[in-house]
């Protein structure tokens, strides 16, 4: 079965996938001969490329974690092999009061998923970390959907994600409100003018 003919598609699907950690300094890379080398910072890596010590597309050694993620997009054509996704996290290390804040939805950056195996396909409660946007190649998906967020949850997640990506929707909303207001005023004025003309 492909993503295209999956019963519900992949938008809002919870899947298990390998997500690579972000490369961080000091960087460990394999040189042109496959020998592991460490570089103090990104500029050192660039210099090593310039000097022919590393390939133009160097190989960073980064670990990857098998974890649940929620996919934010569908790929019905299969033309784009990567999915935008958000990582799911546990929050067992928080104190009780903070755990309750997550469960009560008081932490906007953490979208709470209660323990609901039939719906989410997970054994424990989790939270979607709105600050964990990642791209996952379809070949890195370990499972198909084990559960789904519903349409309302996907909608809320999308709106919050815009906020956490610092996408300012307020100007567009303001423009829409002003445009609508101006149309209403114009229509009202036109109506009044017509009434005045009518004997």
């Amino acid at each position, binding site marked *: 079965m492909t993503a295209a003919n999956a019963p519900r598609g992949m938008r809002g699907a919870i899947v298990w996938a390998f997500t690579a950690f972000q490369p961080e300094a000091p960087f460990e890379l394999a040189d042109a001969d496959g020998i592991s080398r460490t570089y103090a910072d990104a500029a050192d890596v660039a210099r090593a490329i310039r000097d022919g010590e590393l390939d133009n597309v160097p190989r960073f050694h980064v670990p990857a974690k098998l974890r649940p993620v929620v996919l934010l997009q569908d790929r019905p054509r299969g033309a784009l092999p990567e999915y935008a996704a958000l990582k799911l*996290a546990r929050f067992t*290390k928080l104190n009780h009061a903070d755990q309750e804040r997550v469960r009560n939805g008081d932490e906007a950056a953490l979208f709470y998923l209660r323990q609901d195996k039939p719906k989410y396909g997970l054994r424990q409660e*989790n939270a979607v970390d709105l600050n964990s946007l990642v791209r996952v190649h379809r070949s890195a*998906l*370990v*499972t*198909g959907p084990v559960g789904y967020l519903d349409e309302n949850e996907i909608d809320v997640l999308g709106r919050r994600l815009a906020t956490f990506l610092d996408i300012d929707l*307020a100007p567009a909303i303001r423009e829409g409100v002003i445009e609508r207001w101006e149309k209403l005023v114009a229509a009202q004025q036109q109506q009044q003018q017509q009434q005045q003309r009518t004997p």
Partner: protein
Amino acid sequence: MHTRVVPANEVRIPEPAAGELIIVERYGKPHAAVIDAESLQLFQRMLAMFGEHQPVELALSETALAVHRSSEAGEDVEDFDFDLLAAHPAQ
């Protein structure tokens, strides 16, 4: 605005009535203010609509940061159930 949540039992504040703004003065000048939860929501909505756009990182709570950090380190993540390989194979 940067938001810091403090449990109520760790501070002593006067109980704000709905719609009431309590200004705490120091040396005769406003030092801090206390508003009720409903007014705070209104303030935050207005700030979002009309205030200058601020990087959201400024408003991240310590709770959100703690979960993010442990998650990014792969430390507090549900364990994979290998039965899923057969039950829900990748498509």
